[in-house]
């Protein structure tokens, strides 16, 4: 049953990164667009994300709940040492969700739209950066795991784990990844003749992702980060990264040919491989620290808990996944062109 639970944890993480990531990315893409394109993007985002964005963000709740039920000791370290960036992520999630609804549901369209748009764009960028900093913090080696943390300063215990060059680089890398996913998604959803906006965005995002990834690795290598060292000596991780790079080719071919669904599958697969590479290089040690590491499998909840959780997840998954699939199919995959209609109608 433990493997069922682990599967759902990884599954939720992956879906959150892909679906939630594309969702955050939409705001980033909008932010880095010309004024005219922002308007087009705003409309497209509403049409594409509107029905599904809430569902996209529930994956993070599923993840957190699985973590605290099945891996309480691990969760404990996460919430104590990364309290600050997690709080910022929460504020970002809150403001972003509210801004999204406000800008599409406000009955009167006036200057307040500017405020909502601003809130939406800024929180769309800041939230994934801090989320990435949380991921970075876990593998940065800066989390203090020794018993004797009382003689350390506030900065060393609660700030340094996430506020260091490496973690910030991971944060920026993650935000770029979100923008990449979103651009690929938006290509297929754009109005007739506007695809080029997003093809250009996707190209830029691909380059940014690559460059950020490279900088993160080079910095990590020079500064002797355990994570990077493990990564580059792990043949499976390297292989996954190489395949992910090679996949850029079919990705761009399918984009050029206008094969929307296929191009998304390739982009999703690339992100899957990146996550897989990061995970297998240090699994099951999910927190890497200079004074030891914490495995996800340390101090797991008792069997009785894991079994019940596993069964609940299987049942929940059986109920939710078909519904979710149907929702995605109904609204996302089928291009519904209602360009001239009022978006809030």
């Amino acid at each position, binding site marked *: 049953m433990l493997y069922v639970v682990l599967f759902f944890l990884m599954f939720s993480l992956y879906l959150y990164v892909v679906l939630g990531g594309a969702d955050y990315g939409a705001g980033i893409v909008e932010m880095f667009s010309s004024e005219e394109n922002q308007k087009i993007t705003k409309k497209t985002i509403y049409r594409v994300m*509107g*029905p*599904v964005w*809430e*569902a996209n963000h*529930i994956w*993070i*709740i*599923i993840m*957190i*709940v*699985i973590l*605290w*039920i*099945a891996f*309480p*000791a691990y*969760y*404990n370290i*996460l*919430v*104590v040492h990364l*309290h600050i960036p*997690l*709080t910022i992520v*929460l*504020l970002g*999630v*809150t*403001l972003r*969700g*509210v801004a*999204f*609804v*406000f800008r599409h*549901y*406000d*009955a*009167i369209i006036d200057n307040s739209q500017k405020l909502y748009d601003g809130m939406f764009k800024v929180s769309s960028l800041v939230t994934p950066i801090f989320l990435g900093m949380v991921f970075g913090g876990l593998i940065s080696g800066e989390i203090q795991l020794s018993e004797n943390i009382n003689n350390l300063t*506030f900065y060393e*215990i*609660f700030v340094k784990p996430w506020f260091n060059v490496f973690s910030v680089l991971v944060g920026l890398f993650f935000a770029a990844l979100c923008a990449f996913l979103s651009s690929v998604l938006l290509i297929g959803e754009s109005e007739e003749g506007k695809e080029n906006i997003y093809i250009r965005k996707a190209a830029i995002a691909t380059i940014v992702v690559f460059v950020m990834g490279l900088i993160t690795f080079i910095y990590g290598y020079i500064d002797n980060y355990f994570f990077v060292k493990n990564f580059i000596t792990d043949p499976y991780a390297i292989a996954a990264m190489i395949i992910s790079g090679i996949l850029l080719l079919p990705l761009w071919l399918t984009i050029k040919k206008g094969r929307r669904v296929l191009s998304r599958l390739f982009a999703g697969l690339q992100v899957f491989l990146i996550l897989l590479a990061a995970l297998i290089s240090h699994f099951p040690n999910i927190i890497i620290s200079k004074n030891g590491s914490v495995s996800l499998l340390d101090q797991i*909840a*008792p069997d*009785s*808990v894991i079994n*019940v*959780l596993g069964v*609940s*997840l299987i*049942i*929940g998954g059986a*109920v*939710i996944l078909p*519904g*979710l699939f149907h*929702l995605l199919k*109904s*609204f996302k995959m089928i291009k*519904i062109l209602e360009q001239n209609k009022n978006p809030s109608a």
Partner: protein
Amino acid sequence: MENLDAARLQMAFTLIFHIVFACIGMVMPFFMVVSHYKWLKTKDQIYLTLTKAWQKGVAIFFVTGAVSGTALSFELGLLWPEFMKHAGPIIGMPFSLEGAAFFVEAIALGFYLYGWNKLPEKFHWFTGVIIGLSGVASGILVVAANGWMNSPSGFDYIDGQFLNIDPVQAMLNPAWFTQALHMTLAAFTATGFAVAGIHAFQIFKGRRVALHTKAFKIALTFGAIAAILQPISGDISAKDIAERQPVKLAAMEAHYNTEKGVPLYIGGIVNAETQEVKYKIAIPGMLSFLAFGDFNAEVKGLNDFPEDERPNVPIVHYAFQTMVGIGGVLMLAGLLYFVSLKKKKWLKSNKYWILFVLLAPLGFIALEAGWIVTEVGRQPWIIHKIMRTKDAVTPMPGIVFSFYTYIVVYLTLSVAVTWLMIRQIKVLNAQK
């Protein structure tokens, strides 16, 4: 401010807001589907307009409820890591099921909001019903987790260790049913009266009276039925608490010395130093009767419990009085509403509408007061008789800063949501 106090205030504050958003998001779908049903049956355009107006309300409150709920799911761990480390695995069951219910709700909401003229009529309506049902299921499951904190079960506590964990038994703890019943009825009462009050105000102002009257009736029918049933649930809860958490009952009634035939105090000002309650109305034997069904039964007083195991008596007492007082008023208002359905000329009177405008906020005040009774009344324990709140708090100093940040964000959010609603109504009234 002490870290513990800051953490408690932040938790209280975020819960107070979340409860309002969540209740409205949970109950309004029911109003919406009733109106939608009437539209399908009668093809009266007003019902369609109303359904679409309410659907925007549902969407806005669902999101605010969802994001504040996401924040809470993290805050449990961020503020109370020691609690979650031990309690997480035990009470994970209702939370994981709640996650599933919430997911179903989000999917159904996606279908409903964007399904107009795209989905088959009946299926589309049915997705609305699913929104409501899964919302209520979520509410019940979360309350079940809270119930566990009041009546921990499903494990053996040996030498500071939680052993032989049974998540199902933990979920179905002795308090889950009474608390969930009371809360569900409270949510319907509070939302019903609040929504009806808003429409009553529009009727009083003479704006689109036909539409707002239909809205008023749908909302208040739910609110009134729940308000009339609530005292029964309250009675079940009182008897349950008398048995399980006698110290909480004693604090609710500011009852200090163990006696037989204890009177029920209505109102009164508590002096915790002298253990006196002044300016109260006392109904002889009534507390004994309400707690144990016998006017002569012995009710344990606060002095029977060690001083460091008692909650803050004045807060619990005033909150309890507020809740019960408002509950009584709303029950009478609910009866009055059903009478008014027979007396058509009342509906022509401004006084009738003003009355319901004034009643609008009361349900939520009672609901918050009720949660203050439950939560402050459980102190100093985070897990009743097992773990103290002060032992669960995060070691990270400076929580007071995140507390202030949350205050600013949530207050702004509340003002913004209210403003948004006013604008919705304005546009609705201007439509022809």
